[in-house]
């Protein structure tokens, strides 16, 4: 009994790490640029396909391919901000929503055209291995993904709190106008924010590849969880999104164990509903960190 619960918590925590990488990207973009990026899941998908082709064409391990997917998606993020999002930033929210939504649809259908609807997997030596501790098991691929996700999140936190550029990003997220008055170049800050967010999505893609299949719709699976995590953890709050993602992973896993395998998400959405009712600003308490 206790073993089953412990295993459920471990499973939830591990997948929560992946949710965190996606949701931190969404919340960072929202916090700094003040737009909702509906296409975040599609960038995870692009990261997965990049890793897949690097693995099958050049024999590069998906985890190692992080060093390629992250910089590539960082550049993509900068370009998206500079050439697309910059043009729609203004008092009206509608064009921004339509822009990222259209981007999502475009990337999805482009992927269908280029890669077809087939599922693609990479089989690594550790894909099916697990550490066994007593009656518990920890899959190696997911453990690696979780550890790397936590390291990246930690690195982002350090970046936001210790570097000038990081501080500028936090300043821009707290009050864009004052930040501009203080001599911060908003477009530069926004470009970096988009770059980091997409690099995290790319990292999520690479980390997923050893144990999950790549297919054009794969981003949709993760982006839904990411949006819930972002709201739960207070919009724009990086640490909040991280904690909320881990909580959701555990809630989903326990829900599957004790409510039903088709209703694991009920627990997650129940959590969201209660949070919205009693703490409308999210578990972060409304403070943007």
């Amino acid at each position, binding site marked *: 009994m206790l073993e089953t619960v412990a295993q459920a918590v471990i499973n939830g925590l591990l997948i929560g790490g992946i949710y965190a990488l996606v949701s931190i990207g969404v919340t960072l973009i929202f916090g700094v640029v003040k737009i909702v990026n509906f296409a975040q899941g599609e960038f995870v998908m692009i990261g997965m396909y990049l890793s897949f082709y690097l693995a099958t064409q050049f024999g590069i391990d998906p985890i190692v391919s992080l060093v390629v997917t992250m910089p590539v998606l960082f550049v993509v993020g900068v370009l998206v901000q500079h050439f697309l999002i910059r043009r729609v930033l203004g008092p009206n929210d509608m064009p921004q929503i339509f822009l990222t939504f259209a981007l999502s649809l475009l990337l999805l259908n482009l992927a269908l055209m280029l890669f077809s609807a087939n599922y693609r*997997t990479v089989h690594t030596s550790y894909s099916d291995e697990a550490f066994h501790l007593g009656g518990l098991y920890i899959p190696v691929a997911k453990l690696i993904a979780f550890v790397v996700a936590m390291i990246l999140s930690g690195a982002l936190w350090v970046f936001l709190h210790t570097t000038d550029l990081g501080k500028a990003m936090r300043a821009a997220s707290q009050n864009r106008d004052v930040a501009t008055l203080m001599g911060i170049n908003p477009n530069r800050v926004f470009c970096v924010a988009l770059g980091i967010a997409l690099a995290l999505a790319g990292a999520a893609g690479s980390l997923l590849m050893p144990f999950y299949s790549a297919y054009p719709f794969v981003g949709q*699976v993760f982006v839904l969880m990411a949006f819930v995590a972002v709201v739960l953890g207070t919009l724009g709050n990086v640490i909040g999104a991280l904690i909320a993602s881990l909580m959701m992973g555990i809630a989903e*896993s326990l829900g*599957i164990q004790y409510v039903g*395998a088709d209703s694991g998400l009920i627990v997650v959405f129940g959590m969201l509903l209660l949070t919205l009712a009693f703490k409308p600003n999210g578990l972060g308490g409304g403070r943007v960190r």
Partner: protein
Amino acid sequence: MKKDRQPSVLSGENAAAKILSKPQSRRKFLLKTGGAVAAGAFGAVPLRGWAADPVNIGALYPTTGSMAQIGVGCVAAAKLAVDMVNEAGGIKSLGGAKLNLIVSDVQSDTTVTRTETDRLITGNKLSAIHGCFASALTLIASQVAERAKVPLITGSSSDQLNKNLSYTFTPFARASQFAQAQLQMAKLVGDKPKVAVIFENTAFGTSTSNGLKEQAPGEGVEIVMFEPYSAGFTDASPLINKVKASGANALFSVSYLNDLILIVRTVKQVGLDIAINGGSGGFVIPDFYKNVGKLAEGLQGVAHWNHDMDDNAQKVNVEYKKRTGDFLFEYAGGLVAQTFMLADALERAASPDPVKVREALSTLDVSSGYAAMAPGGKVKFGPDGKNVYGRPIGVQWQNGDLASIFPKEFARAPMIKS
């Protein structure tokens, strides 16, 4: 008032025509004479061989969308089958008429299936249709075909296809028979099978798993876990954790490809010693092995067709492999047999008229040749359009290939215990 105005407009046009009449007259002349020559040329065709008009066969398959993998393979098999019939001389009673395949993409979508079936039937003079792989799509196409009075032959397994439809023919095993075969196979693995049934919460998952649940007591199989899950999950671990806690020694998974891949991998990671039966559909296609690799070895499933069944099936398999690089999988292989059943019916009907083709199909009775390429080797349709000899075949992944292992009389390889 309108009447007054119309002539004036027309006369205006006539006036324009008069002005332009000179430069156009030569062109008009050429057009007219050309048309006459062309008409003569076309008229000459029926004189030489009116019966050689090709016979149109509609093929409805999802070649885009979530089911595209299987749909594309089906189209390749359908083309192969038509080539085989045509190379053997076409339909002799129709003067050697060739079969002409008209493929339509139903995009893995029920709404599109309805409009595409309609469009295919109204836009072409069809003698028959085959399709659509997924039962949910075939159910809709069969309704449209019924109304249009065009026979539809399908490998889809839903038992619902045999209810109140007189234009639908199902030459292969039904879903209820699949369930029975799966339960019997569980007894091959151990004397006292304790089965965990996990299924995706869709029409396909629920109907198949309910069939298993209903027939389990009759087959003496105990079901210790019966659990729906939401299709397209991110992580199979919680579900497998639950299977482990149930103490089952056999696992039936009613899933599409991606979920099944995760389930099989997770079972390995957990180190759970359990016999997995992956059913049919996404489990019995080459892509499953490509994605899962060695982990697939020893896994069992059920199919309505397998490429090692008989000599004819093996012959077709070799040809298909030459064209596509993969072995001929269940649905596509059955489709080749279906095309030959249609050819047999057309031969006897001696007419491309769909109503007459339906008549001929209903009296089909074959036990040799490519048309009889079905488990048991015999095809004869009952009044409900069901092959009275239809039986499923139990298969197992062995060395990257699917081997027939159940029942004993169909077995082409011994079962390996994993």
